[in-house]
């Protein structure tokens, strides 16, 4: 329990209570919806890009604290990154969430705490949900929905 309490206490609850950039970006250049059919959670992700670089990111949705915190950290972490760097970050975060593999020493926006989720496999999809929406938004431009079950 202590590890879990630690995860929740350190970041999840704080981000869940006051999520960063919890708003719809209007206008935006890219957006996508991440959907988890197993629990009904939904995260809408918005990007405003200037050329190849993210100026601003925002999200909205109905989701558990882990997905919300992950999305909140995401919107902080991707600011200023270009598409290639974002894809790389998303892959690294996925390894972190699935295997707890920290890879880098330096993680932007406290993202390293998501490594704890690897010890709760039942929750990895929650943490990954906004990142799936992120890469879908980059790939598809706008309006697509991506499911955690694909």
């Amino acid at each position, binding site marked *: 329990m202590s590890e879990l309490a630690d995860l*929740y206490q350190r970041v999840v*609850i704080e981000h869940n209570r006051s999520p960063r950039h919890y708003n719809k970006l209007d206008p935006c250049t890219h957006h996508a919806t991440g959907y988890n059919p197993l629990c*009904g*959670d939904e995260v809408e992700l918005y990007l405003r890009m200037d050329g190849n670089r993210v100026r601003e990111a925002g999200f909205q949705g109905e989701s558990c*604290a882990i997905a919300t915190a992950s999305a909140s950290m995401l919107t902080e972490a991707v600011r200023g990154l270009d598409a290639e760097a974002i894809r790389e970050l998303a892959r690294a975060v996925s390894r972190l969430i699935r295997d707890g593999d920290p890879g880098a020493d330096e993680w932007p926006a406290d993202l390293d705490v998501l490594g704890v989720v690897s010890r*709760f496999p039942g929750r990895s999809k929650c943490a990954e949900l906004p990142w799936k929406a992120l890469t879908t938004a980059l790939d598809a431009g706008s309006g697509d929905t991506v499911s955690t079950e694909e």
Partner: protein
Amino acid sequence: MSSAEPLQAAGGSLDVQAIRSQFPVLDQQVNGHPLVYLDNGATAQKPEAVIEAEARCYREYYANIHRGVHSLSQRSTAEFEAVRGKVQRLLNAPEEKEIIFTRGTTEGINLVAYSFLRPQLQAGDEILITAMEHHSNIVPWQIICEQTSAKLVVVPISDAGEISLDDVAERIGPRTKLVSVVHLSNALGTINPVKQIVDLAHARNVPVLVDGAQSAPHMPVDVQALGCDFFVFSGHKLYGPTGTGVLWGRYELLKAMPPWHGGGDMIRTVTFEKTDFADPPARFEAGTPNIAGVIALGAAIDWFLALDPRAVAAHEADLLAHATARLGAIPGLRLIGTAEQRAGLVSFVMDDAHPHDIGTILDGYGIAVRAGHHCAQPVMQRYGVPATARASFGVYNTRDEIDRLAEGILKVRDLFGG
């Protein structure tokens, strides 16, 4: 079954500690705490009698059934077929040959959808269900509606999670071809007035299917008293093995139904010109079934009947009352499903914590609950929540365990700040 007596304390109430000791899986620590298993609505744990019956089949006499002259096949066939009589007793079914073995509730409903209903369904016909059905009592009907241009009609539910008989009556019309309704809702705990629904439907010659996935393990079931035409349940929720289940149907309906799956064991004679189908139940049991599983389901039914379903229902009613009182007193917690007639479970949401987070934190204290939409997304939509947390009871649960659940929820509240 010989162990019937020790499980009953004086006065007919259950000796829950004796029952618990028959479930090996309950005796363990999870995340450093004694396991509190409150996910029985998803599936129930298995007593020694069931585990042993399945193992004994494989150890002592396993062979294929209905097709061997040798001794093992005859013994397997006899043990397998004897389970029909046990199911007949469980449901108070008029006849043993009305018992069809399936893989579970889902398969039973699909069998009725494809074999009974679809052949007679015309464009504009209607199938009546309620707004509290499990996906397995929604999707098969939607699929055959799609194929035939028939229509799915839905009885709404109240804030408490009840349906009104007036709403049912209003929706049974000349085009209604079947009413299919859950007996005990897995998402809300509501017990539906099935007998009255059957009376309304039969007054208009409409047959009724009852989804008994949750009722069979939690209350006495009497299909003759209910008056329904089909009743389905799953073995795994009734302390039996996965991959087993039952469709009971009135014989004259079954007899008129075409087969669903074709194959071995369901025929009388086969030539390339024509196949003569066997009578029910064989007609609907193509291929080699889950032999050892069905035999162990028989052990589960013996075990359950020895407890006495009335005593089980009384014990779980006490747990429900205790849980409703304890959880109802927690600020910021809302019970979803407060029907007057209710059994088996409490479904709830909290102001500050999402059901998933509740589930994860309770798991940290060794408490297993379900968090999600419980395969009843329309119910979640009805209450405007994405999901609920659900604690569902089994015969081995105790008041102490409900207290641990309540303490766990208070910890969730502390963590998320109430």
